[in-house]
């Protein structure tokens, strides 16, 4: 093997490794996040319309529509960012409940829908950037 061939093989290998790292550290797609956030709204609407049976279908639809992970990088994810991501969903649930109370207190219709909308906004505004940080923290 000559030196040019060796250099080219090394460059090719580095390029391919970067492809995997880029795929493994990419933030979740907008599509996946919108589906996740939309699920909160749909859940609220289903409750307000007294169609609780729809929730089961909703869960199946969200799981089916969500994209699958294509690359799992080596190493453990950052515990701090993982905790922050979990906290985002807890905050979203708390926001949901708080908005529901406020809407019920104001005697407005569809409190679950408003709660779901607020939770969806929280998930989009907080969850996606935190998930992007969590993914980026895995970059070797």
């Amino acid at each position, binding site marked *: *093997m000559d030196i040019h061939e060796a250099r080219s*093989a*090394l460059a090719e290998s580095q390029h391919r*490794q970067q492809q*995997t790292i880029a795929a493994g550290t990419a933030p979740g797609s907008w599509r996946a996040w919108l589906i996740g956030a939309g699920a909160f709204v749909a859940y609220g609407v289903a409750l307000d319309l007294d169609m609780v049976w729809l929730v089961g279908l909703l869960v199946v639809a969200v799981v089916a529509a969500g994209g*699958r992970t294509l*690359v799992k*990088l080596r190493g453990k994810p950052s515990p701090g960012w993982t905790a922050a991501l979990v906290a985002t969903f807890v905050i979203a649930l708390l926001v949901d409940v708080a908005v529901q109370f406020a809407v019920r207190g104001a005697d407005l219709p569809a409190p679950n829908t408003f709660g779901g909308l607020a939770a969806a906004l929280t998930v989009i505004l907080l969850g996606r950037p935190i998930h992007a940080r969590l993914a980026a923290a895995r970059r070797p």
Partner: protein
Amino acid sequence: MVPPLDEFVHTPARLSILSLLAPAEWVAFSFLRDAIATTDSALSKQLKTLEEAGYVKSFKDRSARRSTSVRLTEQGRTAFEDYLNALEQLVARSRGTGT
């Protein structure tokens, strides 16, 4: 002295596959196929050869709707790292910095 190159790894398709697998715990079959812009059957053939050599392992991922994923084995990782080391030493030697 430069260690001998693993001729088995030293083919463009196999080198691409091993390089794509190296930073990952596992990758989806579809990711490999799209990354190297090949067909399902051509990739399957390469993976079968690598699997027979003990370099990679294919498995069905239950958490991903039973789709196929691929990972590097310890033997494959060692062979890949040895191959890269040999290349780096070859390049270093040409610069006059190698041992």
